[in-house]
Protein backbone atom coordinates (compact mmCIF):
# COMPACT_ATOMS: atom_id res chain seq x y z
CA UNK A 1 0.00 0.00 0.00
CA UNK A 2 1.62 3.20 -1.15
CA UNK A 3 2.17 6.06 1.32
CA UNK A 4 1.30 8.49 -1.51
CA UNK A 5 -2.24 7.13 -1.77
CA UNK A 6 -4.93 9.76 -1.59
CA UNK A 7 -7.36 7.27 -0.06
CA UNK A 8 -6.37 4.49 2.34
CA UNK A 9 -8.59 2.01 4.12
CA UNK A 10 -6.86 -0.25 6.64
CA UNK A 11 -8.68 -3.12 8.36
CA UNK A 12 -12.07 -1.52 7.90
CA UNK A 13 -15.07 -3.38 9.26
CA UNK A 14 -18.64 -2.24 8.93
CA UNK A 15 -21.93 -3.87 9.72
CA UNK A 16 -25.58 -2.92 10.03
CA UNK A 17 -28.02 -3.94 12.70
CA UNK A 18 -31.25 -5.23 11.24
CA UNK A 19 -33.70 -6.28 13.89
CA UNK A 20 -31.73 -8.53 16.25
CA UNK A 21 -29.25 -9.48 13.55
CA UNK A 22 -26.00 -7.74 12.64
CA UNK A 23 -25.21 -7.93 8.94
CA UNK A 24 -21.53 -7.52 8.18
CA UNK A 25 -20.78 -5.53 5.03
CA UNK A 26 -17.00 -5.30 5.29
CA UNK A 27 -14.62 -7.24 7.44
CA UNK A 28 -10.99 -6.18 7.66
CA UNK A 29 -11.08 -4.43 4.31
CA UNK A 30 -7.96 -2.75 2.92
CA UNK A 31 -7.85 -0.40 -0.03
CA UNK A 32 -5.48 2.19 -1.46
CA UNK A 33 -6.40 4.66 -4.18
CA UNK A 34 -3.57 6.82 -5.48
CA UNK A 35 -4.07 10.49 -6.25
CA UNK A 36 -5.27 11.13 -9.83
CA UNK A 37 -6.82 7.66 -10.04
CA UNK A 38 -10.23 7.01 -11.61
CA UNK A 39 -11.65 3.88 -10.04
CA UNK A 40 -14.88 2.18 -11.00
CA UNK A 41 -16.39 0.03 -8.26
CA UNK A 42 -18.69 -2.69 -9.51
CA UNK A 43 -20.52 -5.49 -7.84
CA UNK A 44 -23.93 -6.98 -7.23
CA UNK A 45 -26.55 -5.25 -5.10
CA UNK A 46 -25.70 -5.53 -1.42
CA UNK A 47 -22.01 -6.03 -2.07
CA UNK A 48 -21.12 -2.83 -0.19
CA UNK A 49 -20.50 -0.36 -3.05
CA UNK A 50 -22.65 2.41 -1.62
CA UNK A 51 -21.39 1.74 1.91
CA UNK A 52 -17.85 2.18 0.60
CA UNK A 53 -18.76 5.58 -0.90
CA UNK A 54 -20.54 6.57 2.33
CA UNK A 55 -17.44 5.74 4.36
CA UNK A 56 -15.11 7.63 2.00
CA UNK A 57 -17.46 10.63 2.04
CA UNK A 58 -17.72 10.71 5.82
CA UNK A 59 -21.43 10.02 5.59
CA UNK A 60 -21.18 6.79 7.55
CA UNK A 61 -18.76 5.55 10.22
CA UNK A 62 -16.60 2.44 10.41
CA UNK A 63 -17.03 -0.09 13.21
CA UNK A 64 -13.29 -0.80 13.18
CA UNK A 65 -10.22 0.13 11.18
CA UNK A 66 -9.09 3.45 9.83
CA UNK A 67 -9.73 5.62 6.79
CA UNK A 68 -7.34 8.31 5.61
CA UNK A 69 -8.06 10.77 2.83
CA UNK A 70 -5.24 13.08 1.79
CA UNK A 71 -3.35 12.04 4.89
CA UNK A 72 -6.20 13.07 7.19
CA UNK A 73 -7.73 10.35 9.31
CA UNK A 74 -11.50 10.74 9.04
CA UNK A 75 -12.85 7.75 10.94
CA UNK A 76 -12.69 9.51 14.30
CA UNK A 77 -13.99 12.92 13.27
CA UNK A 78 -17.06 14.47 14.90
CA UNK A 79 -20.18 15.31 12.88
CA UNK A 80 -19.17 18.94 12.43
CA UNK A 81 -15.58 17.98 11.55
CA UNK A 82 -16.93 15.55 8.97
CA UNK A 83 -19.10 18.34 7.52
CA UNK A 84 -15.98 20.50 7.16
CA UNK A 85 -14.09 17.53 5.66
CA UNK A 86 -16.80 17.01 3.05
CA UNK A 87 -16.99 20.72 2.24
CA UNK A 88 -13.25 20.99 1.69
CA UNK A 89 -12.21 17.65 0.25
CA UNK A 90 -15.03 15.75 -1.42
CA UNK A 91 -17.38 16.36 -4.35
CA UNK A 92 -20.46 14.16 -4.73
CA UNK A 93 -22.31 13.19 -7.91
CA UNK A 94 -25.53 11.24 -7.45
CA UNK A 95 -27.60 9.06 -9.76
CA UNK A 96 -30.63 11.37 -9.60
CA UNK A 97 -28.63 14.64 -9.77
CA UNK A 98 -30.20 15.97 -6.53
CA UNK A 99 -30.26 19.59 -7.61
CA UNK A 100 -32.31 22.09 -5.64
CA UNK A 101 -35.39 22.68 -7.83
CA UNK A 102 -35.93 26.28 -6.70
CA UNK A 103 -32.38 27.35 -7.56
CA UNK A 104 -30.94 28.11 -10.97
CA UNK A 105 -28.04 26.09 -12.35
CA UNK A 106 -25.59 28.79 -11.21
CA UNK A 107 -27.13 28.94 -7.73
CA UNK A 108 -26.98 25.16 -7.43
CA UNK A 109 -23.32 25.22 -8.36
CA UNK A 110 -22.70 28.06 -5.92
CA UNK A 111 -24.12 26.12 -2.94
CA UNK A 112 -20.82 24.55 -1.75
CA UNK A 113 -19.12 27.94 -2.03
CA UNK A 114 -21.47 29.34 0.63
CA UNK A 115 -19.36 27.29 3.04
CA UNK A 116 -16.17 29.10 2.03
CA UNK A 117 -14.92 32.58 2.80
CA UNK A 118 -15.01 33.61 -0.86
CA UNK A 119 -16.65 36.93 -1.71
CA UNK A 120 -19.58 37.30 -4.06
CA UNK A 121 -17.44 38.17 -7.08
CA UNK A 122 -15.04 35.29 -6.46
CA UNK A 123 -17.91 32.88 -6.06
CA UNK A 124 -19.41 34.05 -9.33
CA UNK A 125 -16.06 33.54 -11.03
CA UNK A 126 -15.73 29.99 -9.66
CA UNK A 127 -19.30 29.16 -10.73
CA UNK A 128 -18.67 30.44 -14.26
CA UNK A 129 -15.49 28.38 -14.51
CA UNK A 130 -17.22 25.21 -13.27
CA UNK A 131 -20.14 25.66 -15.64
CA UNK A 132 -17.74 26.26 -18.54
CA UNK A 133 -15.91 23.04 -17.67
CA UNK A 134 -19.15 21.08 -18.11
CA UNK A 135 -20.11 23.17 -21.18
CA UNK A 136 -23.18 24.71 -19.57
CA UNK A 137 -22.18 28.36 -19.26
CA UNK A 138 -25.18 29.35 -21.36
CA UNK A 139 -27.58 27.56 -19.00
CA UNK A 140 -26.50 29.37 -15.85
CA UNK A 141 -29.87 30.99 -15.27
CA UNK A 142 -31.96 27.96 -16.11
CA UNK A 143 -33.80 26.00 -13.46
CA UNK A 144 -33.38 22.21 -13.26
CA UNK A 145 -36.91 21.68 -14.63
CA UNK A 146 -35.84 23.54 -17.79
CA UNK A 147 -32.92 21.18 -18.45
CA UNK A 148 -32.53 17.61 -19.71
CA UNK A 149 -31.28 14.80 -17.47
CA UNK A 150 -27.81 14.98 -18.97
CA UNK A 151 -27.63 18.74 -18.46
CA UNK A 152 -28.80 18.39 -14.87
CA UNK A 153 -26.09 15.81 -14.23
CA UNK A 154 -23.50 18.15 -15.71
CA UNK A 155 -24.72 20.87 -13.34
CA UNK A 156 -24.34 18.34 -10.52
CA UNK A 157 -20.76 17.66 -11.66
CA UNK A 158 -20.06 21.40 -11.77
CA UNK A 159 -21.41 21.64 -8.21
CA UNK A 160 -19.14 18.75 -7.19
CA UNK A 161 -15.98 20.36 -8.56
CA UNK A 162 -16.66 24.05 -7.91
CA UNK A 163 -14.82 24.09 -4.58
CA UNK A 164 -11.90 22.20 -6.13
CA UNK A 165 -12.06 19.03 -4.01
CA UNK A 166 -9.36 16.35 -4.26
CA UNK A 167 -11.83 13.50 -4.39
CA UNK A 168 -14.98 12.98 -6.47
CA UNK A 169 -17.40 10.31 -5.31
CA UNK A 170 -19.91 9.32 -7.98
CA UNK A 171 -22.83 7.02 -7.20
CA UNK A 172 -24.23 5.55 -10.43
CA UNK A 173 -23.81 8.92 -12.19
CA UNK A 174 -25.19 7.58 -15.47
CA UNK A 175 -27.80 5.23 -14.05
CA UNK A 176 -30.65 7.51 -15.08
CA UNK A 177 -29.35 8.48 -18.52
CA UNK A 178 -29.46 7.07 -22.06
CA UNK A 179 -26.27 5.65 -23.55
CA UNK A 180 -25.20 8.71 -25.54
CA UNK A 181 -25.80 11.11 -22.67
CA UNK A 182 -24.13 8.69 -20.26
CA UNK A 183 -21.06 8.62 -22.47
CA UNK A 184 -20.95 12.44 -22.48
CA UNK A 185 -21.07 12.50 -18.68
CA UNK A 186 -18.41 9.82 -18.41
CA UNK A 187 -16.21 11.68 -20.88
CA UNK A 188 -16.57 14.76 -18.70
CA UNK A 189 -15.49 12.75 -15.66
CA UNK A 190 -12.59 11.36 -17.64
CA UNK A 191 -11.49 14.90 -18.57
CA UNK A 192 -11.73 15.98 -14.94
CA UNK A 193 -9.51 13.05 -14.00
CA UNK A 194 -6.96 13.44 -16.76
CA UNK A 195 -6.77 17.20 -17.13
CA UNK A 196 -7.63 18.47 -13.66
CA UNK A 197 -6.13 15.53 -11.75
CA UNK A 198 -9.32 14.78 -9.83
CA UNK A 199 -9.30 11.44 -8.06
CA UNK A 200 -12.60 9.75 -8.85
CA UNK A 201 -14.31 6.79 -7.22
CA UNK A 202 -17.37 5.80 -9.24
CA UNK A 203 -19.88 3.13 -8.26
CA UNK A 204 -21.63 1.63 -11.26
CA UNK A 205 -23.50 -1.42 -12.45
CA UNK A 206 -22.69 -0.60 -16.06
CA UNK A 207 -19.58 -2.27 -17.54
CA UNK A 208 -19.60 0.31 -20.35
CA UNK A 209 -19.36 3.08 -17.78
CA UNK A 210 -16.59 1.27 -15.94
CA UNK A 211 -14.51 1.26 -19.13
CA UNK A 212 -14.08 5.04 -18.79
CA UNK A 213 -12.23 4.49 -15.50
CA UNK A 214 -8.52 3.74 -15.22
CA UNK A 215 -9.28 0.59 -13.28
CA UNK A 216 -12.21 -1.36 -11.94
CA UNK A 217 -12.62 -2.89 -8.50
CA UNK A 218 -15.11 -5.69 -8.06
CA UNK A 219 -16.81 -5.97 -4.72
CA UNK A 220 -18.61 -9.09 -3.66
CA UNK A 221 -19.86 -9.78 -0.13
CA UNK A 222 -17.67 -7.01 1.20
CA UNK A 223 -14.43 -8.12 -0.42
CA UNK A 224 -12.56 -7.03 -3.54
CA UNK A 225 -12.53 -10.12 -5.65
CA UNK A 226 -10.72 -8.93 -8.73
CA UNK A 227 -8.72 -5.88 -9.71
CA UNK A 228 -7.88 -4.96 -13.24
CA UNK A 229 -6.67 -2.07 -15.30
CA UNK A 230 -9.38 -0.84 -17.63
CA UNK A 231 -7.66 1.96 -19.40
Amino acid at each position, binding site marked *: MSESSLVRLVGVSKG*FVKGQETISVFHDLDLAIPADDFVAVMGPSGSGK*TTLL*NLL*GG*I*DRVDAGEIRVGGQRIDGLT*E*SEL*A*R*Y*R*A*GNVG*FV*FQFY*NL*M*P*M*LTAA*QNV*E*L*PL*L*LTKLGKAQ*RREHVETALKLVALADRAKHYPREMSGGQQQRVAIA*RAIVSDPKLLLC*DEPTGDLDRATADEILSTLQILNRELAKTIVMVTHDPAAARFARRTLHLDKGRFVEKGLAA
Partner: protein
Amino acid sequence: MNDFVLIRKNLFRKKLRAILMIVSILIAFAIFGVLAAFERAFNVGQEVAEADRLVIVNKINFTQPLPIAYFNRVRAFPGVREVTHANWFGGYYQDPKNVLIVFAVEPETYTQIIGSDVIIPRDMRQAFIRDRAGALVGEGMASRFGWKVGDHIPISSNIFSQKNGSHTWDMTIVGIFGKRKPQIDANVMLFQYDYFDETRSFGKDTIGWMVLRTTSPSINDQVAKGIDTMFANSSYETSTDTEKAFNKAFIAQLGNIALIVTLVVGAAFVTILMIVGNTMMMIVRERAREIGVLKTLGFSSARVLRLVLGETVLLAIVGGLPGLAVAAAVTLMLRRSLVQFVPGMTLNPSIILTGLGFMLVLGLATGLLPAINAWRLKIAVAMGRG
Protein backbone atom coordinates in the same frame (compact mmCIF):
# COMPACT_ATOMS: atom_id res chain seq x y z
CA MET B 1 -26.55 34.02 -3.27
CA ASN B 2 -26.48 33.72 0.50
CA ASP B 3 -28.36 31.88 3.23
CA PHE B 4 -31.17 34.45 3.13
CA VAL B 5 -31.74 33.86 -0.59
CA LEU B 6 -31.78 30.12 0.07
CA ILE B 7 -34.34 30.61 2.86
CA ARG B 8 -36.48 32.91 0.70
CA LYS B 9 -36.38 30.55 -2.28
CA ASN B 10 -37.33 27.63 -0.07
CA LEU B 11 -40.22 29.53 1.47
CA PHE B 12 -41.77 30.48 -1.86
CA ARG B 13 -41.07 27.33 -3.84
CA LYS B 14 -44.73 26.28 -3.44
CA LYS B 15 -46.42 29.61 -3.84
CA LEU B 16 -49.98 28.62 -3.00
CA ARG B 17 -48.92 26.90 0.21
CA ALA B 18 -46.74 29.86 1.19
CA ILE B 19 -49.52 32.36 0.45
CA LEU B 20 -52.06 30.38 2.50
CA MET B 21 -49.70 30.26 5.47
CA ILE B 22 -48.87 33.96 5.10
CA VAL B 23 -52.56 34.89 4.96
CA SER B 24 -53.34 32.88 8.08
CA ILE B 25 -50.49 34.58 9.95
CA LEU B 26 -51.56 37.95 8.56
CA ILE B 27 -55.07 37.46 9.95
CA ALA B 28 -53.71 36.45 13.37
CA PHE B 29 -51.52 39.56 13.58
CA ALA B 30 -54.31 41.81 12.31
CA ILE B 31 -56.55 40.47 15.10
CA PHE B 32 -53.74 40.95 17.59
CA GLY B 33 -53.06 44.53 16.47
CA VAL B 34 -56.68 45.67 16.57
CA LEU B 35 -57.45 44.01 19.90
CA ALA B 36 -54.24 45.24 21.48
CA ALA B 37 -55.00 48.82 20.32
CA PHE B 38 -58.51 48.43 21.73
CA GLU B 39 -57.22 47.13 25.06
CA ARG B 40 -54.54 49.84 25.26
CA ALA B 41 -57.13 52.55 24.57
CA PHE B 42 -59.33 51.19 27.32
CA ASN B 43 -56.50 51.16 29.81
CA VAL B 44 -54.96 54.48 28.85
CA GLY B 45 -56.52 56.05 31.95
CA GLN B 46 -54.29 53.90 34.14
CA GLU B 47 -51.20 55.07 32.28
CA VAL B 48 -51.95 58.76 32.71
CA ALA B 49 -53.12 58.49 36.31
CA GLU B 50 -51.09 60.68 38.64
CA ALA B 51 -49.63 59.05 41.73
CA ASP B 52 -50.88 61.73 44.13
CA ARG B 53 -54.42 61.91 42.74
CA LEU B 54 -57.28 60.18 44.57
CA VAL B 55 -60.86 59.75 43.44
CA ILE B 56 -63.80 59.77 45.83
CA VAL B 57 -67.06 58.18 44.70
CA ASN B 58 -70.22 56.97 46.36
CA LYS B 59 -69.53 53.65 48.08
CA ILE B 60 -72.55 52.02 46.36
CA ASN B 61 -71.08 52.75 42.93
CA PHE B 62 -69.82 55.73 41.01
CA THR B 63 -73.17 56.43 39.34
CA GLN B 64 -74.64 57.34 42.72
CA PRO B 65 -74.24 60.99 43.78
CA LEU B 66 -72.49 62.60 46.72
CA PRO B 67 -73.65 65.77 48.52
CA ILE B 68 -71.86 68.97 47.45
CA ALA B 69 -71.34 69.64 51.17
CA TYR B 70 -68.68 66.91 51.16
CA PHE B 71 -66.51 69.08 48.95
CA ASN B 72 -65.57 71.59 51.64
CA ARG B 73 -65.13 68.86 54.26
CA VAL B 74 -62.68 67.03 52.01
CA ARG B 75 -60.90 70.28 51.16
CA ALA B 76 -60.28 70.82 54.88
CA PHE B 77 -59.07 67.26 55.49
CA PRO B 78 -55.40 67.02 56.60
CA GLY B 79 -53.09 65.93 53.80
CA VAL B 80 -55.37 67.18 51.00
CA ARG B 81 -53.56 69.75 48.89
CA GLU B 82 -56.42 70.51 46.50
CA VAL B 83 -59.73 68.96 45.53
CA THR B 84 -62.30 69.38 42.81
CA HIS B 85 -65.57 67.78 41.80
CA ALA B 86 -67.32 66.75 38.62
CA ASN B 87 -70.62 65.41 37.32
CA TRP B 88 -71.32 63.10 34.42
CA PHE B 89 -73.66 64.95 32.05
CA GLY B 90 -74.47 62.29 29.44
CA GLY B 91 -74.22 64.75 26.58
CA TYR B 92 -74.79 64.73 22.88
CA TYR B 93 -74.74 67.32 20.12
CA GLN B 94 -77.85 67.78 17.94
CA ASP B 95 -78.36 64.04 17.40
CA PRO B 96 -78.19 61.37 20.16
CA LYS B 97 -75.76 59.54 17.88
CA ASN B 98 -73.22 62.35 18.39
CA VAL B 99 -72.33 61.22 21.89
CA LEU B 100 -70.10 63.62 23.83
CA ILE B 101 -68.13 63.14 27.01
CA VAL B 102 -69.25 66.18 28.99
CA PHE B 103 -68.50 66.95 32.63
CA ALA B 104 -70.05 69.66 34.78
CA VAL B 105 -67.12 70.78 36.91
CA GLU B 106 -66.01 73.33 39.47
CA PRO B 107 -64.02 75.43 36.98
CA GLU B 108 -61.19 76.86 39.05
CA THR B 109 -60.15 73.72 40.93
CA TYR B 110 -60.85 71.29 38.09
CA THR B 111 -58.65 73.14 35.62
CA GLN B 112 -56.01 73.38 38.31
CA ILE B 113 -56.00 69.64 38.98
CA ILE B 114 -56.01 68.53 35.32
CA GLY B 115 -53.35 71.11 34.49
CA SER B 116 -50.69 68.39 34.43
CA ASP B 117 -52.62 66.48 31.73
CA VAL B 118 -53.83 69.21 29.40
CA ILE B 119 -52.71 72.58 28.11
CA ILE B 120 -55.24 75.33 28.80
CA PRO B 121 -54.11 78.82 27.75
CA ARG B 122 -54.32 81.17 30.74
CA ASP B 123 -56.79 83.62 29.14
CA MET B 124 -59.09 80.75 28.18
CA ARG B 125 -58.94 79.33 31.71
CA GLN B 126 -59.87 82.74 33.12
CA ALA B 127 -62.72 83.08 30.64
CA PHE B 128 -63.97 79.63 31.64
CA ILE B 129 -63.93 80.57 35.33
CA ARG B 130 -65.68 83.89 34.60
CA ASP B 131 -68.34 82.84 32.10
CA ARG B 132 -71.19 80.90 33.71
CA ALA B 133 -72.28 79.35 30.40
CA GLY B 134 -68.77 78.94 29.08
CA ALA B 135 -67.42 75.61 27.94
CA LEU B 136 -63.90 74.32 27.50
CA VAL B 137 -63.55 71.82 24.67
CA GLY B 138 -60.77 69.38 23.95
CA GLU B 139 -59.06 69.87 20.60
CA GLY B 140 -60.20 66.44 19.37
CA MET B 141 -63.85 67.25 19.94
CA ALA B 142 -63.49 70.78 18.54
CA SER B 143 -61.90 69.46 15.40
CA ARG B 144 -64.53 66.71 15.06
CA PHE B 145 -67.38 69.25 14.96
CA GLY B 146 -65.48 72.20 13.53
CA TRP B 147 -66.01 74.30 16.64
CA LYS B 148 -64.01 77.39 17.48
CA VAL B 149 -63.80 79.83 20.37
CA GLY B 150 -66.87 82.05 20.51
CA ASP B 151 -69.25 79.51 18.99
CA HIS B 152 -72.62 79.16 20.72
CA ILE B 153 -73.63 75.54 20.82
CA PRO B 154 -76.62 73.64 22.18
CA ILE B 155 -75.56 70.60 24.21
CA SER B 156 -78.22 68.10 25.19
CA SER B 157 -78.27 65.49 27.93
CA ASN B 158 -79.79 62.04 27.78
CA ILE B 159 -79.92 61.98 31.60
CA PHE B 160 -80.74 65.43 32.85
CA SER B 161 -83.40 67.99 32.01
CA GLN B 162 -83.78 71.65 32.89
CA LYS B 163 -86.49 72.96 35.16
CA ASN B 164 -88.28 74.26 32.04
CA GLY B 165 -88.39 70.73 30.66
CA SER B 166 -85.70 71.22 28.05
CA HIS B 167 -82.88 68.72 27.75
CA THR B 168 -80.60 71.23 26.08
CA TRP B 169 -78.15 73.69 27.62
CA ASP B 170 -76.81 76.60 25.60
CA MET B 171 -73.10 77.07 25.95
CA THR B 172 -70.38 79.28 24.55
CA ILE B 173 -67.01 77.87 23.72
CA VAL B 174 -64.50 79.97 25.66
CA GLY B 175 -61.45 77.83 25.12
CA ILE B 176 -59.98 74.83 23.37
CA PHE B 177 -57.42 72.76 25.25
CA GLY B 178 -54.69 70.48 23.98
CA LYS B 179 -53.03 67.49 25.60
CA ARG B 180 -49.68 67.31 27.33
CA LYS B 181 -49.33 63.52 26.90
CA PRO B 182 -50.26 61.55 23.80
CA GLN B 183 -52.38 59.12 25.85
CA ILE B 184 -54.63 61.91 27.12
CA ASP B 185 -58.16 61.99 25.79
CA ALA B 186 -58.87 65.39 24.24
CA ASN B 187 -62.43 64.49 23.31
CA VAL B 188 -63.95 66.02 26.42
CA MET B 189 -66.11 69.05 27.12
CA LEU B 190 -66.19 70.87 30.46
CA PHE B 191 -68.79 73.35 31.63
CA GLN B 192 -69.60 75.05 34.89
CA TYR B 193 -71.20 73.05 37.70
CA ASP B 194 -73.05 76.10 38.99
CA TYR B 195 -74.79 76.62 35.64
CA PHE B 196 -75.71 72.95 35.56
CA ASP B 197 -76.81 72.71 39.19
CA GLU B 198 -78.96 75.82 39.13
CA THR B 199 -80.86 74.82 36.03
CA ARG B 200 -81.30 71.07 36.34
CA SER B 201 -84.64 69.65 37.41
CA PHE B 202 -83.34 67.03 39.84
CA GLY B 203 -80.30 66.08 41.85
CA LYS B 204 -79.61 69.60 43.03
CA ASP B 205 -76.62 70.08 45.33
CA THR B 206 -75.16 66.72 44.46
CA ILE B 207 -71.97 65.89 42.67
CA GLY B 208 -70.76 62.79 40.84
CA TRP B 209 -67.26 62.39 42.23
CA MET B 210 -64.32 64.28 43.62
CA VAL B 211 -60.69 64.24 42.58
CA LEU B 212 -58.05 65.38 45.03
CA ARG B 213 -54.32 65.74 45.25
CA THR B 214 -52.56 64.76 48.44
CA THR B 215 -49.54 66.58 49.75
CA SER B 216 -47.50 63.41 49.05
CA PRO B 217 -48.27 60.04 47.42
CA SER B 218 -46.86 58.39 50.54
CA ILE B 219 -49.91 59.44 52.54
CA ASN B 220 -52.46 58.36 49.91
CA ASP B 221 -53.65 55.36 51.91
CA GLN B 222 -53.90 57.35 55.12
CA VAL B 223 -55.90 60.13 53.46
CA ALA B 224 -58.18 57.70 51.62
CA LYS B 225 -58.97 55.75 54.78
CA GLY B 226 -59.47 58.96 56.75
CA ILE B 227 -61.95 60.38 54.27
CA ASP B 228 -63.93 57.14 54.04
CA THR B 229 -63.99 56.94 57.84
CA MET B 230 -65.18 60.54 58.05
CA PHE B 231 -68.24 59.70 55.93
CA ALA B 232 -68.82 56.21 57.33
CA ASN B 233 -72.35 55.47 58.60
CA SER B 234 -73.73 58.49 56.72
CA SER B 235 -76.39 58.35 53.99
CA TYR B 236 -73.66 58.80 51.43
CA GLU B 237 -70.70 56.65 52.36
CA THR B 238 -67.64 57.13 50.20
CA SER B 239 -65.06 54.96 48.56
CA THR B 240 -61.71 56.63 48.03
CA ASP B 241 -59.00 55.14 45.89
CA THR B 242 -56.06 56.16 43.78
CA GLU B 243 -56.91 57.47 40.34
CA LYS B 244 -55.19 54.48 38.77
CA ALA B 245 -57.24 51.99 40.81
CA PHE B 246 -60.41 53.93 40.06
CA ASN B 247 -59.74 53.90 36.31
CA LYS B 248 -58.93 50.21 36.48
CA ALA B 249 -62.16 49.46 38.34
CA PHE B 250 -64.09 51.57 35.85
CA ILE B 251 -62.74 49.55 32.94
CA ALA B 252 -63.29 46.29 34.84
CA GLN B 253 -67.03 46.99 34.78
CA LEU B 254 -66.94 46.46 31.05
CA GLY B 255 -65.30 43.08 31.52
CA ASN B 256 -61.72 41.96 31.68
CA ILE B 257 -60.59 43.42 28.37
CA ALA B 258 -57.03 42.20 28.79
CA LEU B 259 -58.22 38.64 29.41
CA ILE B 260 -60.53 38.76 26.37
CA VAL B 261 -57.68 40.05 24.21
CA THR B 262 -55.30 37.41 25.57
CA LEU B 263 -57.79 34.60 24.96
CA VAL B 264 -58.72 35.64 21.43
CA VAL B 265 -55.13 36.35 20.39
CA GLY B 266 -53.93 33.22 22.18
CA ALA B 267 -56.50 31.06 20.37
CA ALA B 268 -55.54 32.59 17.03
CA PHE B 269 -51.83 32.10 17.70
CA VAL B 270 -52.16 28.52 18.93
CA THR B 271 -54.17 27.69 15.80
CA ILE B 272 -51.54 29.30 13.60
CA LEU B 273 -48.79 27.57 15.55
CA MET B 274 -50.39 24.19 14.88
CA ILE B 275 -51.11 24.90 11.21
CA VAL B 276 -47.68 26.33 10.39
CA GLY B 277 -45.85 23.88 12.66
CA ASN B 278 -47.58 20.91 11.07
CA THR B 279 -46.99 22.28 7.56
CA MET B 280 -43.32 22.85 8.31
CA MET B 281 -43.01 19.28 9.63
CA MET B 282 -44.46 18.06 6.32
CA ILE B 283 -42.13 20.34 4.39
CA VAL B 284 -39.06 19.02 6.20
CA ARG B 285 -40.20 15.45 5.50
CA GLU B 286 -40.72 16.34 1.82
CA ARG B 287 -37.30 17.93 1.68
CA ALA B 288 -35.46 15.18 3.53
CA ARG B 289 -33.45 14.32 0.45
CA GLU B 290 -32.48 17.95 -0.15
CA ILE B 291 -31.46 18.32 3.47
CA GLY B 292 -29.34 15.23 2.96
CA VAL B 293 -27.77 16.83 -0.12
CA LEU B 294 -26.97 20.02 1.80
CA LYS B 295 -25.30 18.00 4.54
CA THR B 296 -23.43 15.96 1.95
CA LEU B 297 -22.10 19.19 0.45
CA GLY B 298 -20.76 20.11 3.87
CA PHE B 299 -23.56 22.14 5.46
CA SER B 300 -23.36 21.43 9.18
CA SER B 301 -26.43 20.22 11.07
CA ALA B 302 -26.45 23.51 12.98
CA ARG B 303 -26.54 25.47 9.73
CA VAL B 304 -29.39 23.34 8.40
CA LEU B 305 -31.24 23.98 11.67
CA ARG B 306 -30.72 27.71 11.21
CA LEU B 307 -32.00 27.53 7.63
CA VAL B 308 -35.25 25.86 8.74
CA LEU B 309 -35.70 28.26 11.65
CA GLY B 310 -34.87 31.16 9.34
CA GLU B 311 -37.62 30.03 7.00
CA THR B 312 -40.30 29.95 9.73
CA VAL B 313 -39.15 33.27 11.19
CA LEU B 314 -39.24 34.82 7.70
CA LEU B 315 -42.70 33.34 7.18
CA ALA B 316 -43.88 34.89 10.46
CA ILE B 317 -42.43 38.27 9.48
CA VAL B 318 -43.78 38.20 5.92
CA GLY B 319 -47.23 37.39 7.33
CA GLY B 320 -46.98 39.43 10.50
CA LEU B 321 -45.85 42.81 9.15
CA PRO B 322 -48.73 43.17 6.66
CA GLY B 323 -50.98 41.90 9.47
CA LEU B 324 -49.91 44.82 11.64
CA ALA B 325 -50.35 47.17 8.67
CA VAL B 326 -53.93 45.90 8.23
CA ALA B 327 -54.45 46.35 11.98
CA ALA B 328 -53.18 49.95 11.71
CA ALA B 329 -55.63 50.68 8.90
CA VAL B 330 -58.55 49.04 10.73
CA THR B 331 -57.61 50.86 13.95
CA LEU B 332 -57.62 54.17 12.08
CA MET B 333 -61.11 53.47 10.74
CA LEU B 334 -62.39 52.32 14.14
CA ARG B 335 -60.79 55.31 15.81
CA ARG B 336 -63.04 57.63 13.83
CA SER B 337 -66.23 55.69 14.44
CA LEU B 338 -65.53 54.81 18.10
CA VAL B 339 -64.00 58.13 19.14
CA GLN B 340 -66.68 58.73 21.78
CA PHE B 341 -66.25 55.28 23.35
CA VAL B 342 -62.53 54.51 23.10
CA PRO B 343 -60.79 57.74 22.16
CA GLY B 344 -57.10 57.55 21.44
CA MET B 345 -57.31 54.07 19.91
CA THR B 346 -54.04 53.67 18.04
CA LEU B 347 -51.48 51.07 17.08
CA ASN B 348 -48.69 52.59 19.13
CA PRO B 349 -44.98 51.66 19.00
CA SER B 350 -45.22 49.38 22.03
CA ILE B 351 -47.90 47.27 20.28
CA ILE B 352 -45.75 47.12 17.14
CA LEU B 353 -42.74 46.06 19.22
CA THR B 354 -44.82 43.42 20.99
CA GLY B 355 -46.03 42.26 17.57
CA LEU B 356 -42.44 41.97 16.32
CA GLY B 357 -41.62 39.96 19.43
CA PHE B 358 -44.58 37.67 18.76
CA MET B 359 -43.39 37.19 15.17
CA LEU B 360 -40.02 36.05 16.41
CA VAL B 361 -41.55 33.75 19.01
CA LEU B 362 -44.09 32.35 16.52
CA GLY B 363 -41.37 31.81 13.92
CA LEU B 364 -39.09 30.02 16.36
CA ALA B 365 -41.91 28.01 17.94
CA THR B 366 -43.29 26.78 14.61
CA GLY B 367 -39.84 25.99 13.29
CA LEU B 368 -38.33 24.38 16.35
CA LEU B 369 -39.53 20.79 15.92
CA PRO B 370 -39.03 20.66 12.14
CA ALA B 371 -35.60 22.26 12.58
CA ILE B 372 -34.62 19.70 15.19
CA ASN B 373 -35.80 16.94 12.86
CA ALA B 374 -33.70 18.42 10.07
CA TRP B 375 -30.73 18.80 12.42
CA ARG B 376 -30.95 15.15 13.50
CA LEU B 377 -31.54 13.75 10.02
CA LYS B 378 -28.74 11.38 9.03
CA ILE B 379 -27.47 11.82 5.50
CA ALA B 380 -27.59 8.12 4.73
CA VAL B 381 -31.25 7.98 5.84
CA ALA B 382 -32.17 11.18 4.02
CA MET B 383 -30.59 9.98 0.77
CA GLY B 384 -32.01 6.48 1.10
CA ARG B 385 -28.47 5.19 1.29
CA GLY B 386 -28.60 3.62 4.74
